């Protein structure tokens, strides 16, 4: 299986057959501390890639850098062959790379459906001058609402359509945030700890949603602490420690890598997430 992803040897920073995102020499320092120091990294297109590592490994910082929410000290990266370094965060999203946040950013004083509608890109009614004339955006709004309703049904949030996002549970908000990101039709979706704080009853359906994204041709890159989720759904795993990429490979192989186990897994890899999910059902 590694053959249809990797070109050449499997090693940290190895080249991919069809990379969607290529990262070069990205560093970020906070004061004297180096939070991120990635020499080279490629993310395979159409796959689910997990980014794992212990606390403080620089995963979220790397996310922030790649999506324009933070500025690196050095480095460059290309998304679908086009430079993304120095591109503002909203432009990153418009080019098809949409992220979610570790601490869910649902817009609490807006209804669920309005949250979803906001996710749609290039809306004519978002221009000030056309906003005043609703015949200019009415049909577009109807189309967006239809898409949003379809996604809400898929994510089992349709019953909450008119509720304020702030009234949802933490897990539902995670789902909403993911669904909202999909409204923008991303080609690469970056999920920052999609499972954190999610009720075990919801984890299985969340896993299915992520797999469903791949089936629709969307590339997924996600940060996760829980190794068992990683093992269940990812095609490829990238391990970070102290800001560097220390290992890469298929989940089954990486899990057995003694260096990875030492660096990260510690004593936590004995319960299977799949079992937890089953209990929740």
């Amino acid at each position, binding site marked *: 299986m590694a053959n249809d992803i990797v070109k050449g040897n499997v090693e940290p920073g190895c080249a991919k057959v069809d990379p969607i995102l290529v990262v070069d020499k990205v560093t970020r320092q906070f004061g004297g501390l180096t939070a991120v120091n990635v020499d080279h990294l490629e993310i395979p297109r159409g796959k689910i890639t997990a980014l794992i590592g212990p606390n403080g490994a620089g995963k979220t910082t790397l996310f922030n850098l790649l*999506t324009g*929410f933070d500025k690196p000290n050095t480095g460059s990266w290309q998304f679908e062959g086009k430079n993304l370094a120095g591109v*503002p*965060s*909203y*432009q990153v*999203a*418009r080019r098809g790379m*949409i*992220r*979610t*946040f570790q601490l869910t*950013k*649902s*817009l*609490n*004083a*807006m209804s669920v459906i*309005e949250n979803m*509608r*906001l*996710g749609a*890109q290039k*809306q*004519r*009614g*978002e*221009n*000030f001058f056309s*906003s*005043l004339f*609703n015949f200019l*955006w009415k049909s577009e*709004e109807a189309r967006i609402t239809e898409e949003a309703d379809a996604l809400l049904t898929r994510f089992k949030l349709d019953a909450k359509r008119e509720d*304020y996002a*702030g009234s949802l549970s933490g897990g539902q908000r995670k789902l909403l*945030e993911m669904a*909202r*990101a999909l*409204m*923008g039709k991303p080609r690469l979706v970056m999920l920052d700890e999609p499972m954190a704080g999610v009720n075990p009853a919801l984890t299985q359906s969340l896993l299915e949603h992520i797999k469903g994204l791949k089936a629709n041709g969307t590339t997924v890159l996600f940060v996760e602490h829980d190794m068992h989720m990683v093992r269940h759904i990812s095609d490829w795993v990238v391990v970070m420690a102290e800001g560097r990429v220390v290992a890469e490979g298929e989940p089954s192989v990486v899990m057995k890598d003694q260096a990875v186990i030492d660096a990260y897994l510690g004593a936590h890899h004995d319960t299977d997430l799949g079992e937890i999910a089953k209990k929740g059902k």
Partner: protein
Amino acid sequence: MDWLQIFNLTIGTLIDPITMAYILCAVGLSVHFGFTGLLNFGQAAFAAVGAYGMAIGVLTLKLPLLGAMGFGLLCVVMFALVLGIPTLRLRADYLAIVTIAAAEVFRYLMSTVGLSEVTGGSNGLSQFGYEFFTWNPIPQGTYVLGTLQFSANDLWLRIFAISLVIISATLVWLMMRSPWGRVLKGIREDEDAVRSLGKNVFSYKLQSLIIGGLFAGIGGQVFILAMSNVQPSAWVTNFTFTIWTVLLLGGAATIRGPIAGGLVFFVLLILTNEILAGLLNIGLLPFLTLPQIGQIRFVLIGLALMLLVIFRPQGMFGNKKEMRFNG
């Protein structure tokens, strides 16, 4: 107490052009703060820029009044750009301090002796409003409205001001039901989330600052047409904070909030004034003099601002879930 007199004063206040001027400024602030979450403490300056722009347009640039009003609004846009481009990236409380400081700087500039050829210095400007009354379509004469009497010009000024309020509120309603308004509300909730969805947050904040500033600029123009002069001392920080009180009273994130807030605020001011004056008159307030009653009104404004923000931040008509202070 003369109840008929109080009734007349109340009705008079409800249609007073000064009341309308404050409401227009509050409509602008509702765009800034209520819908976008921008802590603008310099709304007085937006009103002042519109007002001075108009007065200087007529007196120095010799523009026709309509052109001068347009010039005033152009000045507001410039002011919003100069203020907004560097500051809209700042944290909310920094924005507050920068805007209040910028408003004071503008006021100092309008009162400095060196610029008094154009600005009139601390005396301000007057004699700019003649043309306004030539627009008056109402035949000359005295008009009776219930128990109130108005000259044709008074009536025209009131109709003009009230129409502007209605138009402004309608415009804000149109804006806020649109996807454009949705982006603003999203920014109020969490600007990073909106950014991650591909919206240029900075551009929207700037648009919000300009649009809300324009309403204030129009409010400033109505204000000086009603006062028939423009002076730097009118645009002190208290002017801004009165607008805040009006807005928070009605409900910041609503369309009717600024209007209801303005009407209720000024009627309450009149009523407290009349009641206190009445009590004074029958000797129940031995320690106070009549001018001091005017000062008590400001104590009440301050108290109202405090109590509203603490106990009812959503205002009279707002929805508690929709109106929170972030941070």
